């Protein structure tokens, strides 16, 4: 399995790592059992994402997709950010190995979860607080590859 240079760059020099103590929206997706957790913090002013930080437990691709996702959402309106797909994250990294595509899905879901949290805090949604991404089971996001061990 080979990572692109861009993935390795974002893994070795991740952009926007850290926390925002007074974040306006925080989203966490994945779980430790599956081997990856992404937590995203957003600072939002007038519907525009002015700052973003992340923390990730996971493989090289998980770190790289988190890093790329933060770059993609920075400066965007929340509506624009909500339209960012996992494919866009993967493409911005010059692609991911097929077994790692689930990491880009997590990155997309982390953005959505953080925005959802922001909306909830500000009464902008009637969603009662469950985020489907957080409850997703590993089996749904991981790809099975038989005979690879």
């Amino acid at each position, binding site marked *: *399995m080979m990572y692109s240079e861009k993935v*390795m760059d974002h*893994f*070795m020099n*991740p952009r926007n*790592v850290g*926390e925002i103590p007074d974040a306006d929206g925080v989203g*966490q997706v994945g779980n*430790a*059992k*599956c*081997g*990856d*957790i*992404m*937590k995203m913090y957003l600072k939002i002013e007038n519907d525009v994402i002015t700052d973003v930080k992340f*923390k*990730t*437990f*996971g*493989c*090289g691709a*998980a*770190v790289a997709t988190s890093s790329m996702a933060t770059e993609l959402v920075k400066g965007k309106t929340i509506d624009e950010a909500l339209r960012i797909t996992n494919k866009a994250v993967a493409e911005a990294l010059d692609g991911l190995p097929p*077994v790692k595509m689930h990491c880009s899905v997590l990155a997309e879901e982390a953005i959505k979860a953080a925005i959802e949290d922001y909306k909830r805090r500000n009464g902008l949604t009637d969603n009662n607080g469950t985020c489907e991404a957080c409850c997703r089971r*590993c*089996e749904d996001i*991981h*790809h*099975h*590859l038989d005979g*690879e*061990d």
Partner: protein
Amino acid sequence: MSTRSIYLDHAATTPVKPEVLEAMLPWFTENFGNPSTVYSIGRTSKKAIEEARETVARIIGAEPREIFFTGSGTEADNWAIKGAAYANMKKGKHIITTSIEHHAVLHTCQYLESEGFEVTYLPVDEYGLVSPEQVEAAIRPDTILISVMFANNEIGTIQPIAEIGKIAREKGICFHTDAVQAMGSIRVNVSDLNVDMLSMSAHKFYGPKGVGALYIRKGVKLTSFMHGGAQERGRRASTENVPGIVGLAKALELADKNMDEHNKKLIALRDRTIAEIEEKIPYVRLNGHREKRLPGNVNFSFEFIEGESLLLMLDLKGIAASSGSACTSGSLDPSHVLLAIGLPHERAHGSLRLTFGDGNTDEDVDCLMEVLPGIVERLREMSPLYEEVRSRKKD
């Protein structure tokens, strides 16, 4: 950045020793004859194979006619297990093995389950040990085969093979051991151990890839694995891999000769690494048994981080290592071995296996310890799990 390259994955494979390569070379070019032919050049090849067979037999305390060369350790395991199962299916269809076997054994047993056999996968304790009592308790009237690995490839735990062999012998049940990781590190005598079948693979003890051997005790019933010509007394057809077989025997001979010195060196490197990791890095756990452990094996779980990230960062520093992480294999679950010794998934994901070998030195451990604590810390700083622990500590 360091340009040194340090290989710490000898359990995956080892480099071929120069003496081994030298012994193999003539059998590719000038002595290329097919051992099954009658003319001189073919007879020379046949003689080389028989000499190799005698060498292997002598080292493990067997008779030459009990040694069968195969294409790999995996093939030896497949042959032993399927061969014994099918040859004895009229007597019974129950097999006993452990939950921490290599996939060459586990997946073979699972295949046999689909063929109507019943398999008991014995659990192991927190160190990865299976007890002879457990084996004894699992034996049923229809048990036809017991297969327990000699030493584990991931955590290095060495099983009480002689005690299990004694039980199997008393009950008259065929006993196979996958000794792929043990050969070259542990002195093996098949008579003392009461082993009926034993698998080995040359590339784990500085021999070539693509060749292994199966010891089959005289009288043990086994169906043939490869059907074809009369090679290996008709039990494993296909033209012999003469250079590989010569290489396997030479490698085993050297390993046997140098074993004490080799082990002493590896144990020193291993124990120093274990001590330094435990001293310098918090939230770690040694996986496997401290004493009943392969000389070159170190396996740690680092909490709050994931194994592949660790391996990538080590690789960028020129260090080649391995992990029990799911991410390195592309499968969903982390190592079945680490789960079997009771590790929760998240800790099994954060494991690192370092396996020392011939070429390693104390300087390699210096280099490793120079970079490892920083890498672990860096990944933890990035981890939301570590953040939770730290904020809990503050409260």
